[in-house]
């Protein structure tokens, strides 16, 4: 087994509604693997991608994760976008002891010894973003607008708690609005936002609106004349890929918070963007934050395998904590014991060429915090997957490790 | 086997042609009573204050020009169409306007449609079976099995409508005339108290017409029968009393001879050289 190629499972939707976001991640992974093979592979072996398409169907993610791990015997999986797809895969990955690198910003409140979260936790995106709004723009009223699913719900709950408890924003200065997936008629909501924003206090919209619904949302904003200088919108799910599907002319000045922008001016990034454009044979091809997350995740895994000298999952899990690799914005990303990584946070303004221009960044990188400090249920929890703790949800008050089976199994294994 | 002709002799009413017990109360009057019934469609008065009574055991022919409202009248009696005004009583106890189609059917009113309608995907046999089933409620239908007696009855009916050979063919593939017969068979299987028969002999040959006439006459007495037909020869051969409808109301009523002498009837319906076509 140690002689053949090392198999890398790629589990992103290439069809259905999620294809819009996930297809590029598949292509990116293929590119990274190709590059690595040109550099001589890993441990002297070639990397071999195994691509499957769950077709935006959540049970299918579980089925295919199982297939990749049990049938194809892949050594690692890079995949998923939505939280629900990750949740669907999670039991499978834990059961079959696989490795999953998840590249998208998410709501937190989860920790698994088999999953590595290379996207942002809420504290790496949402919290700094509202800090920027308050501290730099003097915003006093907030519209929290999101698609009605778990990530926006959780992010907004965290934000609400943070705004009220930490930043002293009054109840009536927060408006929360949820819309269905793919919502396309924003007339009323934009009118409401305008109304809400015209009461004499500087107002901003914090948008956790998902994918497809963004285009009609921004169009409506533009057409109803909501200018970024009147009511700026800061989005957590709108990146360069999404902008490539929107006429950004009328959106100039609206904001997004990410850990990476294509426009970031570093050599590493220029190289990455060039490679990507060459690989896709499209010099207008854009990169985005989840792509950087996969880039970092992939390099961390390479590093960890090298360090462990094997692709054996347990060894890699052990080795990867503490691994530090360069990110694309000129700094370093480190894998923390909670399987989250350190990231800088950038605020960018949309430009008319579909790129973001960084207008603010955190002075240093922020470590991902999966258990939010602003939610009563989880503020006492931490996660640490290093020996001997090996616990994803340690309650620091009671010092007991809550019920993840993985943890129990580890305990049992130790006892034996 | 008994010769077929004996089956339809009017003096020998066979068991399976007996009406089933129905709760209809005819002790104090007619079996069907329509009073001042009107119905209009988009302003067009199809039935205009029509009053009509059918006595128990009577065989009544209803004739009248195309569009006179004959079929519509049957629609009203069977609950398919709700009249705008008027009353319809079955016996003295049942106000038909308060009941829906299955209830009316269960009371014992059966109907043959003008355009033959049979269950095309089911076999001829099954068509008859469904029509004849004794208990049509949900659970009994679910657990029902065909007993020997019922089977026998179906076989007899098949014989009578001359579809024994086609018994297992889907009803959809029958010819037009065969469907007519099948529908008559279904009507018989239902054993209703009152039969409403809309143009039974359309598309039948002379002989078959004669058979149908026999059959209907045989039914009269125990059953009440209302026949709508345009074939005057046929009407003449069965009817003692004829009602002529015109523009939704009764134009004339009486024996065939009386009616055919009526000049208005001749004008709107029979036409002048009547004798040419009507034997």
């Amino acid at each position, binding site marked *: 087994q140690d002689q053949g190629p090392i198999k890398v499972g790629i589990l992103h939707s*290439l*069809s*259905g*509604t999620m*294809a*819009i976001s996930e*297809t*590029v991640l598949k292509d990116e992974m293929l590119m990274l693997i190709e590059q690595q093979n040109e550099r001589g592979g890993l441990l002297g072996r070639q990397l071999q991608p195994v691509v499957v398409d769950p077709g935006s169907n959540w049970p299918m993610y579980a089925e295919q994760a199982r297939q990749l791990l049990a049938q194809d015997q892949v050594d690692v999986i890079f995949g998923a976008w939505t939280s629900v797809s990750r949740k669907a895969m999670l039991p499978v990955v834990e059961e079959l002891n696989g490795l999953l690198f998840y590249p998208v910003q998410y709501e937190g409140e989860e920790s698994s010894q088999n999953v590595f979260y290379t996207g942002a936790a809420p504290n790496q995106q949402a919290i700094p973003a509202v800090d920027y709004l308050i501290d730099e*723009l*003097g915003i006093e009223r907030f519209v929290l607008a999101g698609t009605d699913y778990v990530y926006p719900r959780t992010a907004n709950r965290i934000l609400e708690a943070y705004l009220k408890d930490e930043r002293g924003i009054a109840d009536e200065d927060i408006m929360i*609005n*949820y*819309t*269905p997936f*793919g*919502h*396309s*008629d924003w*007339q*009323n*909501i934009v*009118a*409401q936002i*305008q109304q809400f*924003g*015209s*009461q*004499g*206090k*500087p*107002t901003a919209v914090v948008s956790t609106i998902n994918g*497809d619904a*963004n*285009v*009609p949302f921004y*169009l409506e904003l*533009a*057409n*109803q*004349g909501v200018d970024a*200088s*009147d*009511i700026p919108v800061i989005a957590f799910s709108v990146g360069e*890929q999404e*902008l*490539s*599907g*929107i*006429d950004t*002319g*009328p959106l*100039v*000045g609206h904001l997004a918070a990410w850990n990476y922008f294509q426009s970031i001016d570093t050599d590493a990034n220029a190289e990455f963007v060039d490679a990507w454009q060459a690989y896709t044979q499209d010099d207008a091809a854009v990169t985005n934050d989840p792509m950087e997350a996969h880039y970092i995740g992939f390099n961390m895994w390479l590093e960890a395998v090298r360090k462990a000298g094997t692709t054996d999952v347990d060894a890699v899990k052990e080795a990867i904590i503490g691994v530090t690799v360069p990110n694309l914005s000129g700094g370093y990303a480190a894998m923390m014991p909670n399987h989250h990584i350190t990231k800088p946070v950038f605020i960018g*303004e949309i*430009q*008319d060429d*579909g790129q973001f*221009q960084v*207008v603010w960044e955190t002075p240093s990188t922020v470590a991902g915090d999966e258990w939010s400090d602003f939610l009563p249920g989880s503020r006492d929890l931490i996660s640490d997957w290093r020996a001997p703790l090996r616990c994803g949800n340690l309650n620091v008050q009671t010092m007991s490790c809550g019920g993840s089976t993985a943890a129990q199994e580890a305990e049992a294994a130790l006892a034996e | 086997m008994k010769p077929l002709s004996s089956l339809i002799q009017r003096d020998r009413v066979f068991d399976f042609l007996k009406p089933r017990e129905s709760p209809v109360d005819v002790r104090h009057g007619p079996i069907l009573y329509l009073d001042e019934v009107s119905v209009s*469609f988009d302003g067009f008065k199809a039935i205009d204050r029509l009053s009509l009574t059918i006595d128990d055991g009577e065989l009544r022919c209803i004739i009248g020009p195309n569009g006179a409202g004959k079929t519509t009248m049957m629609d009203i009696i069977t609950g398919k169409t709700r009249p705008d005004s008027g009353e319809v009583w079955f016996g003295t106890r049942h106000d038909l306007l308060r009941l829906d189609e299955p209830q009316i059917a269960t009371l014992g009113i059966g109907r043959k449609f003008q355009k033959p309608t049979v269950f095309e995907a089911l076999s001829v046999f099954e068509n008859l079976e469904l029509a004849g089933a004794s208990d049509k409620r949900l659970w009994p239908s679910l657990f029902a099995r065909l007993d020997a007696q019922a089977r026998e009855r179906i076989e007899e009916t098949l014989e009578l409508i001359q579809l024994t050979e086609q018994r297992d063919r889907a009803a959809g593939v029958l010819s037009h005339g065969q469907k007519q017969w099948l529908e008559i068979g279904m009507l018989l299987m239902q054993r209703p108290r009152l039969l409403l028969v809309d143009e039974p002999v359309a598309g039948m040959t002379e002989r078959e017409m004669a058979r149908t006439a026999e059959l209907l006459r045989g039914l009269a007495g125990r059953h009440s029968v209302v026949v709508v037909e345009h074939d005057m020869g046929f009407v003449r051969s069965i009817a003692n009393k004829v009602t002529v409808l015109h523009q939704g109301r009764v134009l004339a009523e009486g024996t065939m001879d009386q009616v055919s002498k009526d000049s208005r009837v001749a004008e709107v319906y029979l036409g002048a050289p009547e004798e040419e076509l009507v034997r």
Partner: protein
Amino acid sequence: MKLFPLPLFASSGARLFALLGLCACLMVVILGQQAHAQSPDDAALLESLGTGSFNDKSEAINSVAASGTPRAGEWLEAMLDGRLQLAGDGTLVIVASTSGRSLEARAALDGAPMGTIERRELRRIPINNALRVQLRGAIATLDLSAEDPAVRRAAAAGLFGRVDDDLASLIEARLEGEEDESVRAALERALALPRLEHGDVTAIEALRGSQDNAVRLALTRAAQSGDAQMAAAAQQALGEIERRAEINRWLQQLFFGLSMGSVLVLAAIGLAITFGVMGVINMAHGELIMLGAYTTWMLQQWLPGQPGLAVLLAIPAGFLVSALVGIVLERGVIRYLKGRPLETLLATFGVSLILQQLVRTMISPQNRSVVTPEWMSGSVMVIDGLSLTLNRLYVMLFAALVFLALLAVMRATRLGLEVRAVTQNRAMARAMGIRASRVDLLTFALGSGVAGLAGVALSQLTNVGPSMGQNYIIDSFMVVVFGGVGNLWGTLVAGLSLGIVNQWLEPWVGAVLAKIAVLVFIILFIQKRPRGLFPQKGRAAEG
């Protein structure tokens, strides 16, 4: 210097950063102009615009505005539009437009033409939101003394709600020398708010009935002021404004509903033909819509810089593309399924999968960006305080036209008669000499083409991507069926009423519940009218 009261500034949404920037710059402008400060070196001024942090630039903008240099307006405008760019050799240039590979440029300092420069050689001077606000304020103030009265008027109108005491005195001064009546009126209006702030009751008269938010806020404050006369007058004016606002809200809601409704109608109307009239359960209808939208995008790619023309051309082109695909679909598949309508569901479902994936592989899985032409962007103010978005107005109009055209085809042409005959009794229609298969083809092409038209319109409202059709297929079937199958009017009324119900509910219960409520409404309504809004009545339909 005293800052004007904060809330005054909140014309359409409060903006602290805007306030700071604008205010600072106005100060400098006024000082500069009053003092006739000696002109500093233009080159250094220009240089300062192109370098340094956002804060440095903010100061630079102030200096430029105050300098009185004749090029100031041009520089600031170019900077605002992103046309002020840094060439490779370090000189600042102004380019004619920002799109294209190589750009027409002239020197910023003296306007000397520099020919075309490769885009890669240029770097635009970055600005942020705060600078944008500052630039707009500076430009407007400069414009107050422009040659063209129209520009002056626009500048004065633009300053409404942003006038502080200093600016007020500047405007007073301008008013003295102003001859153009309309500009005078605009200036007077601009002054009304600060006058009101200063307790000038007569100012209320000038503001009466205005739906501007700044006015409402100012009046609200005035209504609470100690001055009883002032308070009463303000209160009364406010009541008037409220009443007007109420009517506006109502009208706006109606517009929202009708506009959503017309989108539904557009999406469904093609299906009303292929499904409603022909009885083909066309699951690929959404993909035909998508093709229309992609045609718009494609044309915009071919005609760079002329998005409007591309959209207009897309109307016939989108129709043709979808109609052609419809023809292929009919000839290749549906033709063989005559009399088996449910099988068309299976086959067209397959076709829809194929079309989606085809777009994903041949074009891209990502959304495509379709530009809204200038004349369709933004909104028009129909009455004070009620603006309607233009793109939606156009789409409504378009939907109405498409509907009427289709109605005419189905009612007044032979094709309309023949298709109905064919669907009601195919064999008999053929026995009457009707070329049934040709009729099918033409009708299906028509329905498909109309779906394409819907796509063209939708490209102006929402995202253009491979799965966009999926978003409309369910709604379309619902609208057609709700309206009553086979009835074009039914589709129209159904679409519009569902749109109105949805938009009317939305502010009450939120978007999600509104959608659920509409679905429940449909379910309940169908119980009342089991054959839709406009049922096929009579004996025939009852079967």
